[in-house]
């Protein structure tokens, strides 16, 4: 029984914290709302630290670490609201092969997964996020080696060199590595609300690519890893929000007492702690499953997404409330955490779809035969 981070993992955390501390990414998150060019380019940081090849085996030029290590890096990025394009890149490295994989691992090329949601117990289809609305779009189609379709709200696609699209051929999902610069690829950058997330709508019109060997399970794994990374970012942001909230609750007085001595404030801060510790346990669950119990990784990654999402929703609002009126102004950083929470909740299927999948996994294990529509 050893359910804690290893010494190596703690070192990795600390190194990430150091590396990310060099730029004031929180301040940059504010400036970028007016002028996106104010965002620091953190790709070099990622490359120098070896994060670009974190999940790639040493044989292919990576460092051969596991999902939990990637989550720890993502958490540190989330803590600093850093515009670090790893949610797109890292899952792409799980599916890429050969020379391109080595380029991605080295950071010479950037990758982005065009994420597709695996089938659920209620729906056999592979789907992608629509531009708007609850009806999901079908994943792109693969035909004659060419990919056609639209995928919306793709994280980190804007500056990607290689897109890893999930495309369906005869009902079977295939991962296809596509050069972003070709004519059949249209990448429309979109920034919504949280300027540190560079997203894009991607249109593929008979885009040519290399069909990769990844199986449906591999592709589903990439989706779950993306879920766990966005969850880890959220957990990091919660840790920062709690720290800042506690600090203010100790500094600020009202009616002659520190506000942290009032039950309403105290209990709300403890609620952040409770949700945060639960989310941390779920990160360990996802990390452990990713390493030692792959059959539980889907469940684990999605519980982590749900738990961390709930924690950030709560913490971002509490950070504002604890600060009173000033927390809702740009005098304070709280709005940046709030915007991060709002957007994160809706990406990659959203936390709602993650909760639905958690239920679906458990119901299927319990032998449910749902009465479909």
């Amino acid at each position, binding site marked *: 029984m050893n359910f804690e981070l290893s010494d190596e993992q703690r070192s990795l955390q600390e190194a990430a914290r150091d590396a990310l501390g060099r730029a004031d990414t929180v301040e940059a998150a504010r400036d970028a709302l007016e002028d996106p060019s104010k965002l620091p380019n953190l790709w070099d940081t990622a490359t120098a630290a070896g994060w670009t090849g974190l999940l790639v085996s040493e044989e292919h030029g990576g460092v051969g670490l596991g999902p939990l290590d990637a989550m720890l890096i993502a958490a540190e990025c989330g803590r600093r609201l850093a515009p670090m394009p790893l949610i797109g890149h890292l899952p792409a490295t799980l599916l890429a092969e050969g020379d391109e994989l080595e380029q991605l691992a080295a950071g010479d090329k950037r990758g982005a997964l065009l994420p597709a949601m695996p089938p659920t117990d209620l729906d056999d289809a592979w789907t992608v996020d629509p531009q708007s609305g609850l009806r999901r779009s079908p994943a792109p189609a693969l035909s004659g080696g060419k990919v056609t379709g639209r995928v919306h*709200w793709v994280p980190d696609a804007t500056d990607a060199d290689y897109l890893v699209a999930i495309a369906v051929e005869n009902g079977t999902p295939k991962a296809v590595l596509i050069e972003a610069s070709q004519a059949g690829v249209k990448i429309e950058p979109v920034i919504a609300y949280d300027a540190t997330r560079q997203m894009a709508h991607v249109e593929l019109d008979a885009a040519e690519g290399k069909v990769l060997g990844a199986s449906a399970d591999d592709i589903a794994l990439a989706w779950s890893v993306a879920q766990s990374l966005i969850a880890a970012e959220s957990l990091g942001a919660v840790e920062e929000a709690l720290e800042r909230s506690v600090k203010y609750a100790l500094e600020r007085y009202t*009616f002659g007492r520190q506000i942290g001595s009032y039950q309403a*404030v105290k209990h709300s801060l403890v609620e952040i702690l409770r949700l945060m510790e639960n989310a941390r346990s779920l990160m360990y669950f996802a990390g452990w499953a990713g390493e030692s119990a792959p059959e539980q990784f889907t469940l684990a990654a999605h519980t982590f997404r749900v738990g961390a999402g709930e924690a950030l929703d709560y913490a971002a609002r509490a950070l504002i409330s604890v600060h009173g009126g000033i927390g809702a102004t740009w005098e304070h950083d709280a709005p940046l955490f709030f915007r991060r929470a709002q957007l994160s909740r809706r990406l990659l299927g959203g936390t709602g779809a993650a909760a639905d999948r958690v239920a679906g996994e458990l119901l299927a294990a319990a032998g449910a035969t749902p009465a479909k529509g």
Partner: protein
Amino acid sequence: MDLNDTPEQAEYRTKVRTWLDAHKANAPGLEGPQPGHEEEFVTVRRAWQREMAEGGFAGVTWPAEFGGQGLGPLDQVIVGQEFQAAGVPGILDVIGIGMLGPTIIAHGTDEQKQRYLAPMLHADEVWCQLFSEPAAGSDLAGIQTRAALQEDGSWKLTGQKVWTTNAHFASYGLILARTNSEVTKHKGMSMFIVPMDAEGVEIRPLRQITGEAEFNEVFFDDAHIPADAIVGPVDGGWMVALTTLLFERLAIGGGSESFGYRADRFAKAIADDPVASADSDVRHRLGKLATDLLALRYTGYRHLTDIERGGLPGSEAALGKVTAVKAAIEAGDLIADVIGPEALAEGEWSYLISFLPGLKSAGGTEEILRNMVGERVLGLPTEPRLDKGVPFSELKALEREGAKS
């Protein structure tokens, strides 16, 4: 149970409608100032308030001798309802006419009433309220802005105010300042009228999550206030402030839908999505938050009934804001869950979602509201107060000591 007007109210409503039919072509739009066009916005809205004042629809409840109509709060509500129905804005200086004018009528000198009320009514001079301070949020009586008496009887003002609506185009502000630190905190404050263009007054906008600067910070650095600018007695400012807050409470009585948080508006956003309209999670969430919003609408009618009967809505009326904010947050969450990131990108839902965190603290944090209602309505005991009976000047030291123990 009757939501209809009395004959007198019906008659007044007709009068309002008739005036609106004749004048609404002159009315500006409902939208707020566009970036870069703030001044234009204020100019147009000033003109519209002036037209309303001339028609008798500004200061409806003010006594006739000060240019008002001497009517009741229900008549004021009728004006609001009809203007809303006609899709035209009301007065620009809601705070001046709703709260500060009445305060001056109650506590001001004859000269002050003579000088200030008519230009306020006609929007020639807009007013702002200078009560809140950064270090005195929930505890208004903890303000630190000082007015120091000068040898010639005038005052010098030093300190910082915050959450000041309209400060950047206001002519005057009503300011609560500490004039005596050697007595307990409620007993050493006075109320003044301060010209916003006086030397030593600096105004800085406070941008909110929405990106708008609805509020300002106002800094005072030895700003001069003449002797005759005091409202009410020296060191008697707390009573004057309570009058202002009473009028604020009356103004809120008008109902919770003034923010535009209507169940049908939110339902429309969901109805546009056929999948969402059939999704049981979405429907349960919509059904619950719509229930809250409908409860608010009909609670509003109960409050209007109280007002019609000559009373004030009870302190529990403050809970309407709690419900409104809670339901609107749930609505914003639901709609953005249905629409996705597109809902955050721009437009009404992005604005709604961004606006709510600020609204939650505005006019008292939820914690303070719940304390107030628990004590006044349910008769629950207050918390032990460490600042009871302590001169203001010694409070800081006491706080530091408390923190150590």
